[in-house]
Each structure stands twice: as structure tokens, then as C-alpha cells.
């Protein structure tokens, strides 16, 4: 099974064309073929969640999917979060402020999984829902409390930003029927 097949994948907004063995997992493709080592592999059979990446915006296990299956689709890895100047994004800053990592091994997967949750549920600070969202990613250091706090802090900031937008929005003009 060493025959290679061409695959085109968009990763972090950039298109990549590579030839891969069909049995190459998406995780190995990202790490070994693209050199994006932010995606971590631990158990490599779907339990720990450390290899989570976003496929078309939704978190999946990159160790249980073949790279060829990602052909024509869009992948986001942890490398997409910080700006090109290295400036951390809001979730990364919150993880820093709330001490949401110790060894840091699960952090890329936690960040991406939380990213999707906050995109789909902006402003949701409910710890139960946050825990449900990240329950597929195992962290062996933190006990999760600080991770939940960091995600809730970003959700809180989303609420505030949303209310400021409402307050500063120009008054809505309603077309008047003058007849």
C-alpha cells in the first residue's frame, strides 16, 4: 500500500497539494507532511482527543481520519489562532490568564474545541455546557476547572462586546409609508 495519491487540503486558509499514502492519517499528514506540529497525538485511537482539529469548522479526531478523506475540505489547527505577528488570540490569552494549562499537551485540542463551541454558542458562560463541549478532550493536569473558567471568561467578553455593539448601533430607520 505504498502507492501515493494526490490530495488537496486547505489548512489554516492556505491550500496544500501533496501526494500521500492512502493510509496516512490526517494527524500524521498535518505533523509530518506539513510540519504543523501543534496538533498533538497521544493515544492515537480516538479516546484522548488531543489530536482534535476543526474540519469545516467542527472538531473531529484527526487520528481517526485519513488525509485523503480531507481532500477538498478545510482544516483549522492551533497554528491558525495566533496572528502572523505572534499575537495570541482571545482564547489563548484567557488560557494564560486563568492558568488553564500546566504541561500544555492538551492545550491545542482544548483551544480548538473551545473555539468551535464559542463560535456556535457565543456568550454562553454556563459551566455545564462548556464541560459537555470539551468532555472529549482529556487533560491530566488541570482538573479542568481553570480551562472552564478561561472559556467562560471569553464567553463573558463576547456578551459585553455584543451589548456594546447594540448600544452604539445607529438607530434603525424604518421606511415610512407617507401616502
Amino acid at each position, binding site marked *: 500500500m505504498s502507492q501515493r495519491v494526490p490530495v488537496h487540503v486547505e489548512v489554516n486558509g492556505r491550500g496544500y497539494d501533496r501526494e500521500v499514502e*492512502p493510509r496516512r492519517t490526517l494527524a500524521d499528514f498535518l505533523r509530518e507532511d506539513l510540519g504543523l506540529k501543534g496538533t498533538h497525538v497521544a493515544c*492515537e485511537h480516538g479516546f484522548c482527543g488531543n489530536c*482534535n482539529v476543526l474540519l469545516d469548522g467542527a472538531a473531529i*479526531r484527526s487520528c*481517526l481520519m485519513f488525509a485523503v478523506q480531507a481532500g477538498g475540505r478545510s482544516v483549522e489547527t492551533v497554528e491558525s489562532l495566533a496572528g502572523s505577528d505572534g499575537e495570541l488570540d482571545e482564547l489563548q490569552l484567557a488560557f494564560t490568564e486563568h492558568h488553564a494549562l500546566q504541561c500544555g499537551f492538551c492545550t491545542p485540542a482544548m483551544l480548538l474545541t473551545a473555539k468551535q463551541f464559542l463560535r456556535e454558542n457565543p456568550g454562553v458562560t454556563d459551566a455545564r455546557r462548556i464541560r459537555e463541549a470539551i468532555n472529549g478532550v482529556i487533560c491530566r493536569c488541570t482538573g479542568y476547572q481553570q480551562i472552564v473558567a478561561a472559556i467562560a471568561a471569553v464567553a463573558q467578553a463576547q456578551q459585553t462586546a455584543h451589548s456594546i455593539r447594540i448600544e452604539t448601533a445607529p438607530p434603525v430607520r424604518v421606511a415610512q409609508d407617507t401616502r
Partner: protein
Amino acid sequence: MLAGGQSLVQLLKFRRCRPSALVDINGIPGLDAIERRDGELHVGALVRQQALLDDPQVAESWPLLREAAGFVGYPETRRRGTLAGSLAFAAPWAELTAAAVALDAQLDICSAAGQRSLAAREFFRGPGETALGDGELIVAVRFPAPAPGTGAAFHEVSVRHRDYAQVAAAAQVSPDGHGELVLLCVAPTPHRVDVSEALTRDDAIADLLGRLDPLDDVEASASYRQRVAPVLARRALRDAAERAHRRAPA
């Protein structure tokens, strides 16, 4: 045969199966439909487990399917893993096998030789063993609609939250008092129990279950499963009955 890959890719990695070729069916059009057809819920082979949680028709009319799906894996694995794949893999702890048996699902099975249908109640043969022959593929799973107002509940115990079930109980009760109860891991296949008596006599469950033939493995001992099964069965039937009353029109 590769659909969601959430079980198969594990097996490949453990070298527990070494196929000479793998066919990815994800590109086949028409297998990803989840819809009501002739009063039944039709679930195509590529419908992900997560769709059972997101679909409003499932929530409205097939509540047991939704309750069971909530216990399957993690959000990340549910987005790839399929209902049909979970049934074909037939893990003894697979929550959706219990729902399929309780709901009397029909499996549409296709091969080069033709098509056949088989009831979920005749499909499971043992842990990891089914009636599926070589070259056969489940193309759809069909669920008859329960009576309007049917209540459902799913209970499970596991060592860790969302880990493999040690014992699980799926129950549904219709407003006219007809009940279904299916237990997992207390027999080699999903274990359907006649509960007509249990619904009127609350203390009857343990007698009714009697001497089971539970799995004895690293997740739990057979004697533990024997003791826990009646507790979960009672809880599931009680909750399903309560929800049936609540859902029934006044």
C-alpha cells in the same frame, strides 16, 4: 468498508483486522438522508450519530433514539461515526444497538447479489457478531414511529463519564402503558425484556430479569452487572413512564 471510521480505524491501528482493501463509501450520493418516509424514520448509512441529537423530528417522535445517542462517544466522534456503523460493529456496550432493538428497527442490507431487510431484533448474534455476511452493507436503518406521546429514557453506568457502559438500560413507554425495555452488557446481545407486568408492579423488575448472563470483563464483573441491571431498568422505565404522561395531551 469505511464510513465514519470511529471503530474501524481503531481496529486497523491495533492490527485486529488487516483488510487488503478499504472502500470509502463517503462519496456515494443518497446515503446521508435522515427523513420521515411513510411514517418511518429513514436513516441512511452515512448519517452521523450527532444528527440523531440535532434532528428535530427525532427529538419529537423518536425520543429514545435521541436519549441513546447522547451517550455515544464524544461530540468529536459523533460527528464522524454513523448509526449504521455502530450497529454493524455491534459492540456490546453500543447504546444505539439497544435503541434499535427497542424501537424494532429494520435494517436494509445491500450486496452485489441484491437487497434484503432484517429486523434489528434478529441482527445481533454476539459481541461484535451480526447477521451481516461478507460483501453486505447496511444502506439504511428504518424506525417505525412510536405512538404519539411515547416517553423514553436511557440510563447507563460507566467507570468514567462517557466511557464504555458497564450496564445500560433503554426504555420507552407509550401513553396507553405499552413498554419496551432493552438492557446492554447483561447478555451477549442487546437483551429485550417483556415488561408488560413490570409497569403495573414496581417491585417486579428484579424477579422479571431473573438470572442474567452478563459479560464479565475489565469494565465490570458479571455479579456487579447482575446487581446493577435491575436498578437501571427500574429507573429507565420510571422516567420513560413519567415522560409519557407529561407528553400525553391533557
